[in-house]
């Protein structure tokens, strides 16, 4: 599907028709920034691979969840960040992966078969559901995806998949916690490399073009509808794989757990906090957000959710471009005659403006 758009390098030959070329001229020196973020991400993932050495099971558990949410946020980024289609129902694919795995394990099949089957089923469902749903835009798309996830949760409960009310209880997994950790790690790495590829390839540029202006992209000859469906499938498959791993790892779940709208929200939240459409954003914010939220949680304070919510609100008000955007701004070469201090003062002025605009 992406083949026609992906030509290995030189896009200058067809500069008039291909959006990729436009993207490159619009951004000054993108080539210098991208390998650095790729390198940073790989270093972060390499360091994350050392976590099991700590030998602390609680830390390992937390980091397994971090990687799981990194996978979910990164795959949401394909559609929400790159293509600009904010799905609020991506947990649907998580649940599909979990139930495929759970039901196949219950029927005596090995777990890896269940995980793979879940990915295939989720990919097919994304394709079929994408056909009608991706004709919608903006709020309508968000509401439709949300509806699909909510309806499926009820359906699974009514049909009594697994046990009564859709409860699935699995035997204790034969794999160790460390194995689960590395399975999630591999998945996070794969998502990261896929994001890196999209950030620098024709298919990725096509998706960004759709985000910036769908009509323009269409006018330039991009088959936007099929690209959007492709992005939907791309965000569904890793989500389902993560759901399948989660099912076996957690050993027991019911529809409200794996079709929890809160997971959808967290995917959106992590991507937006980190920087939608960026390479490092979802990965970094998954780490920071999960660590912070766990610290709040074990703080014993009754207000941990309020504190977390307040932190999120502050970040979205003051750095709407996300954490990665903020760092990029600081690394940006200074304009001539501008000192670091003035940059800071400028930032403070912006904060004041936000406050003034809100009448505080």
């Amino acid at each position, binding site marked *: 599907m992406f083949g026609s758009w992906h030509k290995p390098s030189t896009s200058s030959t067809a500069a008039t028709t291909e959006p990729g070329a436009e993207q490159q001229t619009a951004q000054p020196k993108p080539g210098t920034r991208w390998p650095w973020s790729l390198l940073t991400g790989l270093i972060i993932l390499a360091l994350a691979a050392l976590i099991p050495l700590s030998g602390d*099971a609680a830390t390992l558990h*937390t980091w397994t*969840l971090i990687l799981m949410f990194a996978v979910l946020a990164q795959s949401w980024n394909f559609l929400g960040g790159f293509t600009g289609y904010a799905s609020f129902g991506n947990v649907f694919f998580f649940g599909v992966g979990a139930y495929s795995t759970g039901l196949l394990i219950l029927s005596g099949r090995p777990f890896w078969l269940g995980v793979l089957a879940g990915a295939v089923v989720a990919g097919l469902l994304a394709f079929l559901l994408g056909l009608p749903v991706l004709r919608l835009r903006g709020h309508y798309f968000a509401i439709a995806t949300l509806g699909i996830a909510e309806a499926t949760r009820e359906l699974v409960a009514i049909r009594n998949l697994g046990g009564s009310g859709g*409860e699935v209880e699995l*035997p204790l997994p034969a794999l160790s916690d460390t194995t689960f950790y590395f399975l999630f790690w591999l998945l996070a790495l794969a998502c990261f490399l896929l994001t890196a590829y999209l950030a620098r390839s024709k298919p990725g540029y096509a998706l960004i073009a759709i985000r910036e202006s769908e009509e323009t992209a269409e006018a330039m000859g991009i088959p936007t509808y099929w690209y959007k469906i492709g992005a939907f499938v791309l965000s569904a498959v890793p989500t389902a794989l993560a759901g399948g791993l989660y099912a076996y790892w*957690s050993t027991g779940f019911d529809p409200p*757990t794996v079709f929890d709208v809160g997971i959808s929200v967290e995917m959106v939240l992590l991507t937006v906090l980190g920087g939608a459409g960026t390479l490092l954003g979802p990965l970094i914010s998954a780490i920071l957000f999960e660590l912070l939220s766990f610290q709040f949680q074990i703080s*014993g304070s009754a207000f*941990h959710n309020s504190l977390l919510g307040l932190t999120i609100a502050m970040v979205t008000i003051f750095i709407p471009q996300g954490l990665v955007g903020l760092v990029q701004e600081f690394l940006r070469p200074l304009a001539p005659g501008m000192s670091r201090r003035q940059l800071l003062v400028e930032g403070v002025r912006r904060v004041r403006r936000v406050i003034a605009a809100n009448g505080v």
Partner: protein
Amino acid sequence: MIRLFSYLHLPRRHLAHTGHDSSFQSRSSATRLPLPIILLSLLLALLCSTGLLACGGTASSSNTLLFGAPISLTGSTATEGHLTLEGYQLWVKEVNAHGGIKVGNTTYQVALKYYDDGSSPTRSAQLTQQLITADKVNFLLGPYGTSATLQDEAIAERYKIPMVEANGAAKAIFSRGFHYIFGVLSPASEYAKVMLEAALSLPTPPRTVAIISANDSFSEEVATAARDFALSHGMEVVYYQTYPSGATDLTGVLTALKTSAHGGVPDMLLGSGHESEAVTTMKECKQLNINAKLYAFTVGPATPDFITSLGPDANYVLGSSQWTPQERYQGIDFFGTPANYERIYKQTFGHEPSYQSAESTAAGLAFQYAIQNAGSIDPQKVRDALARLNITTFYGVIRFDATGANTFKPMATIQIQNGQVVTVYPKEVANAQLLYPTPPLSQR
């Protein structure tokens, strides 16, 4: 404090590139903290406040037994989670006030370490792991609800730490062949059974029954067990229907039910669901003029809200309860009787105890006697002692079958009479007679 935020109050001209500004800036900068330091100290303050709170919770010494529990204090089951926590806390307070737990020649004080899981099973599992491996708790008390228990028990099983749970009644929890999970409450199958038994104990028992159920796993399990019990005891199940959990309109279901018993209204209507659905059912029965001889709901009638929302229409309705303060048990524990538990609970928390709290306190008692019987705090020995436990407490019998479920404790049937909750069945613990049949709803 004002100086800290003086950045935010800079006059606009201050930020422009003029000579006037630079002199102004140099004058004031001497008295102002740099922004990075402010941000850093704010961050530090944040970390300290959370960190300090974290270690302020429990004091662990060699003679303290630490019990861990992930409980939902926020989120969808926050209310029930708080009741669970109060039950645990009351047990901890009382056991320490009565000298702690004696093991051989050592006396242990008890401490509780709990976290809020935000009603999320994923978080609950994460916090269970934290409690076992980082906080090094000796034993685990259960979370609130079946979903969280399903995940937490797997972690307890892996680390071989016994967990006594008080708030997950689904059969699924005990059907997995796990050895370290024990539940003090009667299993789901008992919820409807006890009300059907109460109905069957009448001189002229109802002959036809209609069962409606919410579609969540617990309610369906209850409803299926009710149908099987009714069929095997000579009652005719004339109508059986599930509806979406949390439904706010049951007119469709009730209209179909109205003529299900050979063209008439069934003798008994049994609802398996939640409090709001029980209230809706009663209101719509009145509107639709459905007059069964007996109304029974698994969850709802025991809560004060049920009576306040329905007023006189709440009278005659049956409910089932894991525990009521009116029951007449003579326990070996320091609470002794349900009435005494109610008194102590009210003194401590200022409101009536619910069955969730009583269950939770009973989970603590199960541990207390198992540890005493084992004469050891070794998790394996305490687990074996739990498996052998057979005691009567203020909460009733605590004795676990091979799967860890407490199938030996009967539930109670309650009825609302003149706006008051009374216990009507089993006869041994009842404080009132079952009133039957229900007068038509329009004549109240």
